[in-house]
């Protein structure tokens, strides 16, 4: 196993509807496909279904209609603020969590997995801080440690939940560069964001507002109509008609 040479990944989602236990569908009519090497922005307001889509792709909630086919191991990279910063874990401990599922309960984490975790940390630029406490890292470094954890899982599909929240500009650039590297290796990145400008940077954009509003390349997909349908009255379209900002409070209650 290696953290740097995965096989080509693929996702096919058709007519997906998903719901939480005993509730109505939280998300419906989602149809899109992606191939290894693509990065897809999952754009929408809070409560629009971004996290619901991720949980459905991970098999954590019921798919009540449609189908999901994923070729490649899937990993979830949470927002760094969702992780407990006061926990006694180092960056290496966090990366090693990616190997927990394949470690029998009666064994220590294998030496090979320890090497993989160190490689993954080097890959995300944290090679000099494996012993640093996770809570003492900067927002961008914490995000990178969580991505290292996904690499140790050998994930070919990465579901990234607001990866730039709480990350400074310099780290944002470093993470963008790292994403380019991951795409070049044939991985698929799904990047949940409520930031329209952020969504323009990726290969495809999937707009969600309880149901799929649109899917396609950002240049043709992010029209005023689509953005208004996605964000409703919260959207502001600037003079030239191409730049738009979603006005909303960001919270974690998706």
């Amino acid at each position, binding site marked *: 196993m290696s953290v740097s040479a995965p096989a080509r990944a693929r996702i096919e989602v058709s007519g997906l509807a998903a719901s939480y236990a005993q509730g109505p569908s939280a998300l419906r009519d989602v149809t899109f496909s992606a191939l290894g090497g693509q990065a897809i922005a999952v754009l929408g307001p809070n409560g629009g279904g971004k996290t619901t889509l991720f949980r459905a792709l991970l098999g954590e909630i019921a798919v009540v209609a449609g189908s999901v086919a994923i070729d490649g191991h899937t*990993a979830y990279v949470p927002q760094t603020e969702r*992780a*407990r910063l006061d*926990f006694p874990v180092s960056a290496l401990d966090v990366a090693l969590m990616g190997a*927990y599922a394949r470690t029998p309960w009666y064994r220590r984490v294998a030496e090979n997995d320890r090497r993989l975790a160190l490689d993954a940390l080097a890959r995300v630029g944290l090679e000099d801080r494996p012993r640093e406490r996770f809570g003492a890292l900067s927002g961008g470094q914490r995000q990178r440690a969580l991505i290292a*954890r996904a690499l140790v*899982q050998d994930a070919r599909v990465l579901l990234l939940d607001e990866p730039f929240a709480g990350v400074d500009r310099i780290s944002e650039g470093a993470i963008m560069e790292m994403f380019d590297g991951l795409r070049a290796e044939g991985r698929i990145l799904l990047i949940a964001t409520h930031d329209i400008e952020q969504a323009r940077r990726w290969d495809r954009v999937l707009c969600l507002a309880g149901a799929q509003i649109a899917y396609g390349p950002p240049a043709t997909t992010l029209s005023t109509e689509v953005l208004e349908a996605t964000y409703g009255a919260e959207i502001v379209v600037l003079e030239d008609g191409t730049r738009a900002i979603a006005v909303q409070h960001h919270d974690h209650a998706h």
Partner: protein
Amino acid sequence: MRWLTDPITTPYMQRALVAVALLGVAGGLLGAWIVLRRLAFFAHAAGSATFPGLVVAGPWGIAPPVAALGAGLAFAGLLSRLTRRAGTGADAATGLLLAAALALGSVLASDVYPSGAGVDSLLFGTLLGVSDRDLWLAGGVAALALFSSAALARTWLATGFDPSGAPALGLDAARGDRLLLVLLAATVVAALPAVGALLVSTLLVVPAATARLLSGSLRTLLVVGVALAVAEGVVGLLLAYHLNLPPGPAIAVVGGGLFACVLAARTIARPREVVA
């Protein structure tokens, strides 16, 4: 020297010392997870919730551990119902049920099944009451805590660190949480004879909270937590013997005093650091 040898040569104290050492192993290990997972208030309330069960155990002819477990399970069931169905916040629901359990136990003990001085033993523990069954129970939970800490540490660590991401790591977070709560309930029941319903936190929370101030890694937290829980239990028992106190409060005083000293020393050494 006789301060030490007198109690050690007394048979009932020997049993109490063995029990508290075994409970220290369970309490220290489990306490680390209770503190990390912010379950300290829940643990305290679960202990107090056993009080009405203990009061009716004698009159109803039920073994006290069984009655305590029954009361603890009723507490857990009601708590789950209040938080999930009625939408009451977990803290508020826990506080409400804690008050209800203590009130119910008090009414039962004073008006329905007058228990006299026995109530003190139920609430604060006793040096005299450690039976063979209590020792076996203490040994059982110590063994279970050791085994679980080895087998489930990774699941508990990953789930506590990042609850939303743990299932995607391929870990059964829900099962891990259920086992943690079952083990917590068993340890509470086992600790009742020694420290009483009101002070199970002295073994399950205080040593681990002190260890948290001294430890940067999980391994040291577990090791220091166990060492402190055993040491505080033994010193507290000796104090209880000499001062004629129930063991629960004596252990609480030792544990609380040590926590305060460590916190003060840490604050002097690192005045700017905020305690997590």
